[in-house]
């Protein structure tokens, strides 16, 4: 993964020098281990700040909406699918973009790493291909990357970018035989009361910081429903019903658009697994409309169009 850093820097430099793009969006190395910072570079001499490693789990498409200039952007599988969604939803034009595709082998879940070292402070991480070494004040441990993937990466079947102008490496082999919806099926099998308990517990820690909403590239509404006050749909206190309403509607607004990039879960300061909501919708879209978001520019998303053979069983 690390080898991409130099390639990204070279490409960004070239694009900026040739004036193919006005700005280049990528990641910069963070000031603490396992955290990277989204970065925009417009000066070809400053491309050395660009960086790529196993912790680029944020979604950069967030920074594309409402841009009017030409931008270069790095995109792995899920990010490229979000770019497609953005183009379909007229958030940016295809000819404004120069997409630098990165075949991705999954991002490492920083929480899983913290758990593995028993929450001790990590001072440095070295990443060497399939393994990584974690160093702290009084310990040093080596882990296999495979076992520490973000849960969405572990079941990802679109690791290669679906849309790009240039590819920075050989395409990787897509995972086969993964069953992405095991956890959803487990919840589906519960009776309503158990489900209520499951979701109430799931969100009980939520502090309503809206990091999940803001990290999501799909959430670009000028005014979110939680901020509307006439009428006010949701209360602002820590009341569980209000919190549930927020998570429910946030997820619902992602129906047929979510690419399961995992940014929402990655950014949550409280470690809530809110993908349990969106994954159910992804599963439904897959089963009812054979649809996965962001794979093609030629087809409108299922909730956008009417087809005579649409799924109809829920209507009496």
């Amino acid at each position, binding site marked *: 993964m690390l080898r991409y850093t130099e390639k990204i820097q070279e490409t960004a430099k070239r694009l900026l020098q040739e004036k193919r793009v006005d700005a280049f969006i990528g990641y910069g190395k963070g000031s603490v281990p396992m*955290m990277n910072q989204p970065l925009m570079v417009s000066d070809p001499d400053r491309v050395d700040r660009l960086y790529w490693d196993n912790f680029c789990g944020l979604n950069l498409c967030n920074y594309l909406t409402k841009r009017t200039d030409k931008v270069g952007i790095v995109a792995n599988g899920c990010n490229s699918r979000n770019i497609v969604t953005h183009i379909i939803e007229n958030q940016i034009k295809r000819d404004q973009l120069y997409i630098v595709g990165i075949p991705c082998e999954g991002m490492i879940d920083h929480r899983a790493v913290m758990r593995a070292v028993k929450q001790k402070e990590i001072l440095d991480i070295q990443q060497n291909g399939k393994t990584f070494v974690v160093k702290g004040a009084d310990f040093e441990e080596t882990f296999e990357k495979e076992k520490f993937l973000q849960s969405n990466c572990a079941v990802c079947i679109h690791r290669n970018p679906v849309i790009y102008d240039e590819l920075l490496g050989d395409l990787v082999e897509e995972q086969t035989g993964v069953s992405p919806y095991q956890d959803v099926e487990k919840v589906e099998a519960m009776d309503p009361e158990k489900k209520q308990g499951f979701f109430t517990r799931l969100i009980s820690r939520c502090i309503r910081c809206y990091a999940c909403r803001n990290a999501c590239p799909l959430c670009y509404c000028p005014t979110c429903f939680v901020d509307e006050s006439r009428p006010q749909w949701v209360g602002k206190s820590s009341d569980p019903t209000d919190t549930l309403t927020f998570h429910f509607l946030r997820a619902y607004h992602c129906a047929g658009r979510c690419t399961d990039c995992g940014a929402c879960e990655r*950014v949550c300061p409280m470690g809530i697994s809110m993908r349990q909501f969106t994954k159910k919708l992804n599963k439904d879209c897959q089963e009812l409309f054979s649809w996965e978001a962001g794979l093609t520019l030629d087809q409108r998303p299922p909730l956008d169009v009417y087809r005579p053979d649409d799924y109809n069983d829920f209507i009496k």
Partner: protein
Amino acid sequence: MTERVYTKEEWIRGLEGLREDYTLFVPVKDGDFHAFMPMNGEKVPDFDFQNTRLSPKSVIYPRSERLFEYILGNADPEANILKESSKDFSPRAIVGIRPCDAQAFQIVRRNFDNPEYRDPWWVRHFESTTLVGLGCNEPCSTCFCTAVGGGPFHEDGLDALVFDLGERYLIKGLTDKGEAFLAKMNGGKPADEAVLKAAEDLTASASQKITSSPPTDPLKGKKINDLFNAPFWEEVAFGCLNCGTCTYLCPTCWCFDVQDEVLGKEGDRIRNWDSCMFPLFTLHGSGHNPRDKKVQRVRQRFMHKLKYYVDKYDNGVQCSGCGRCVRYCPVNIDIRDVCERMNNY
């Protein structure tokens, strides 16, 4: 000043014995991280932690707090009156609070308890709370308390301070509140010279472990307008998601939003935490929003903490150096880095 030594078992037993006199908030392991929770016999306190994910500010300043309430109707003589909600101001103690978080209460106090304005709920909660600190033997690499006038064993703002000496705890009473807490607590032996010496060494070695210290003194001499118009804000703010993680995790952020919630014939006036990162924070009734751009909001947060507060209260920055925002910011906006930029501008 009382100085007593407890073995670790004695300490937990002593706390158990205090549950009649105080509601004790202790660090408890909750999933992947620690949180301050009331000690209720079920949850085991765990003092082997770096710091809690959420700061203990919520004990004194809850995330949502009912201030007033009313009911409508004709039958009840108490109806149709907006009444102050009853609150529990019985003695509380936060045991195991880190010195930085205790110092944060002093910072917030300048806002909630000053000659111009006095927040009755915050002040009463604060006054009924005893802060029993636990010094940091192993500060994180993201901590910078020494740069903002604190330290891993800093005593200001605490009522008592505990030193973790491996097998034993040394506890020092620092204020009347702290002495009262100690007087009620059973067990322990008076501290001898050797123990006090060990505590002193610990304090010295811990302070040296703090590696990052952006100086905050130069901020005072800068001109507000220069900093306000500085060119680096666009760059700092680029990655910002405008989520509330930094402000909600911060022990020194105090902003709130008062909401009326009406349900049928009853209603409440509730005070909730708010965040300057949200566009709604400054939205006027007219629809105008003076801070409708991300960069303005990010600038506001840092300018408030590192400049406006400094100028207004002349008592240092509005930051206790706990490092939470550094560790948990989803996009790694580092206040130490921003402070450096402001210093050097």
